[in-house]
Structures are given as structure tokens and as C-alpha cells.
């Protein structure tokens, strides 16, 4: 990989390379501090720092920062309340953490020369798998084996069951894959696209202004996508939670 990184220093995929900043192992597991880890830490520090700063005064009439924090809080709280109901407010911290983490990673990735944590399938898949495990655990904890009824939709004639049940089962099991691939592919595709068109700016010489303008416009779009993908990941998590909490399919 090291040779590949050297060769592809200007390629569109170079921005996704993992560089080990400090190599060490924990219990035989490679836990090196990479550029990915660095941006995770920066993102978390930013989120916590922002919320700490915003809630510093805790005034009744909010300051600007505080109202932004409250806006984010209400945004996610409403999302959970609308999609899951008040019973789902128990899982609000989890949903908020997911949203803020993904949003911070997506937005950090928009800074030039930075690293987009969410453009790595393993990270998004781990997040999606976490959601899947949490949702399934909640489902079985709340409904016991009755949670399996999720795969047997009501009002379907019994002779269709052999067809419907596997479809439901597959669509349930494919959730973490679709959830993770959506986020990963969106972030990766957007960043690659930007890089490819930025390369055209140089190679086209005098006509380079056209891809430059496109790149600028597309950067704006990428900010929208960065927010939208964090939002969609969270909304889908809420919908899955709703299945587990309320079970009306």
C-alpha cells in the first residue's frame, strides 16, 4: 500500500489513503493512530467543545451559539418523536450521537486536504452494524420472540408466506449494508468527483475555468449532500427504531 500511496499522490483516490501517524498495538490488535483516527478525535472534540461552549451560559434567552445547539437538539428530538414516538425518546442520545458524529465527519471532510472518515466503508459499516445490533436488541428486549412477527406482515394470504417471509427477512438483514453503502458511496463519489474535475482544471489549460466553476458549484452541492446523508442515516435509524419499539409494520 505504501508504494501505491506514493504512486497515486495526485490521483483521485489518494485522499482516501490511510496514513499511520503513530503505530502501536493493543492486545495484539493494530490500534495505530492514523489520519482517520485524528479526524475522528478532532470531530468529537469539535462536537463536545461546541456543545460545551453553547451551553456555557445556559441562559433563558439563548445566545446565538446556544440557539444553534438548541436547534440541533430540537431537530433530532422532533425527528425521534415523529418517527418513533415518545417511547423512543429513551434512545434520543444514541440518535443524536449518530447524527452529530456523521455530520461532523462529513463536514470535516469538506475542508481541503482533510480526511473524510465516512468515506471508508469499514467505518460506515461499523456504524450501520451498530444501529442494526442496537435496533435488533431493542426489538427482542421489548417484544421477546414476538419481534419475529416483524417478518410476517398482517393481511397476507398464507400461501404467499413462503415468498413474503424470506423477502422481509432479506430486506431486514440488508439494512446495515444499504445504510453503510449509501453513506460511504455518497461521500466517496462526491470527493472523487471533485478531485477528478479539479484535475481537469490544470490539464485543460486556458479552458480550465469551466471545470473550476463546476468544482465550485459542486462543492456547494457536496455540503448539502454531507448534511443530507447524515440526516438520512439518522432518519432511517429512527424508522428502524420505530419497527423495534412499536412494531406496527
Amino acid at each position: 500500500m505504501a508504494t501505491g500511496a506514493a504512486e497515486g499522490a495526485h490521483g483521485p483516490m489518494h485522499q482516501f489513503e490511510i496514513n499511520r501517524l503513530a503505530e502501536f498495538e493493543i492486545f495484539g490488535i493494530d490500534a495505530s493512530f492514523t489520519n482517520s483516527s485524528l479526524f475522528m478525535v478532532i470531530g468529537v472534540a469539535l462536537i463536545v467543545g461546541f456543545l460545551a461552549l453553547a451551553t456555557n451560559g445556559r441562559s433563558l434567552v439563548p445566545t446565538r451559539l446556544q440557539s444553534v445547539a438548541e436547534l440541533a437538539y430540537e431537530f433530532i428530538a422532533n425527528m425521534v418523536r415523529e418517527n418513533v414516538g415518545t417511547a423512543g425518546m429513551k434512545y434520543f442520545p444514541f440518535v443524536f450521537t449518530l447524527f452529530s458524529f456523521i455530520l461532523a465527519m462529513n463536514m470535516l471532510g469538506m475542508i481541503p486536504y482533510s480526511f473524510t472518515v465516512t468515506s471508508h466503508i469499514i467505518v460506515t459499516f461499523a456504524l450501520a452494524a451498530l444501529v442494526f445490533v442496537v435496533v435488533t436488541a431493542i426489538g427482542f428486549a421489548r417484544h421477546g420472540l414476538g419481534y419475529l412477527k416483524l417478518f410476517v406482515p398482517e393481511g397476507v394470504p398464507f400461501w404467499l408466506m413462503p415468498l413474503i417471509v424470506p423477502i422481509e427477512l432479506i430486506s431486514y438483514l440488508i439494512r446495515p449494508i444499504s445504510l453503510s453503502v449509501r453513506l460511504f458511496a455518497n461521500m466517496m463519489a462526491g470527493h472523487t468527483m471533485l478531485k477528478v474535475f479539479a484535475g481537469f482544471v490544470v490539464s485543460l489549460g486556458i479552458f480550465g475555468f469551466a471545470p473550476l466553476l463546476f468544482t465550485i458549484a459542486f462543492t456547494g452541492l457536496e455540503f448539502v449532500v454531507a448534511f443530507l446523508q447524515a440526516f438520512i442515516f439518522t432518519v432511517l435509524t429512527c424508522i428502524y427504531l420505530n419497527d423495534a419499539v412499536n412494531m406496527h409494520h
Partner: protein
Amino acid sequence: MDPTAAKFIGAGLACFALIGAGIGIGNIFGNYLSGALRNPSAAPGQFTNLLIGFALAEATGLFGLLIALIILFG
């Protein structure tokens, strides 16, 4: 046939999945707009559903893209 060429052709074919995703996303947003213009007061309430539909339609296309990437780099 040269295996590399076959790989590229396969990856290109896999990207056809994006046609369907494009049509689907166009359908979703088009229908949302026409519905929203008929009944603008109901439109904001369906915005979340619009984004979910968009995400689901896009995901199917992205699966195809993923296959293309795996063929190319896997």
C-alpha cells in the same frame, strides 16, 4: 479477451444500475413537486418521506456502483 478489458467492461455494465436509480430519483422528486404544487399545505409534512424515498432509490443504484468498484479494485 484481455482480462483487464473484461474487468472494465464488467464495471461499466455494473454502472447501468445507476440508470434505474436516476429514473427512480427523478420520479420521486417529480411526483413530490407535482403533489406539492397541487396541495402546497401538505408538502412540508411529506419532506421526510421524500428524503427517505430518495435515499432508498439511490441505494439501489449505489449497490451497482459498489459492484463496479469491487470489480475494478477488488
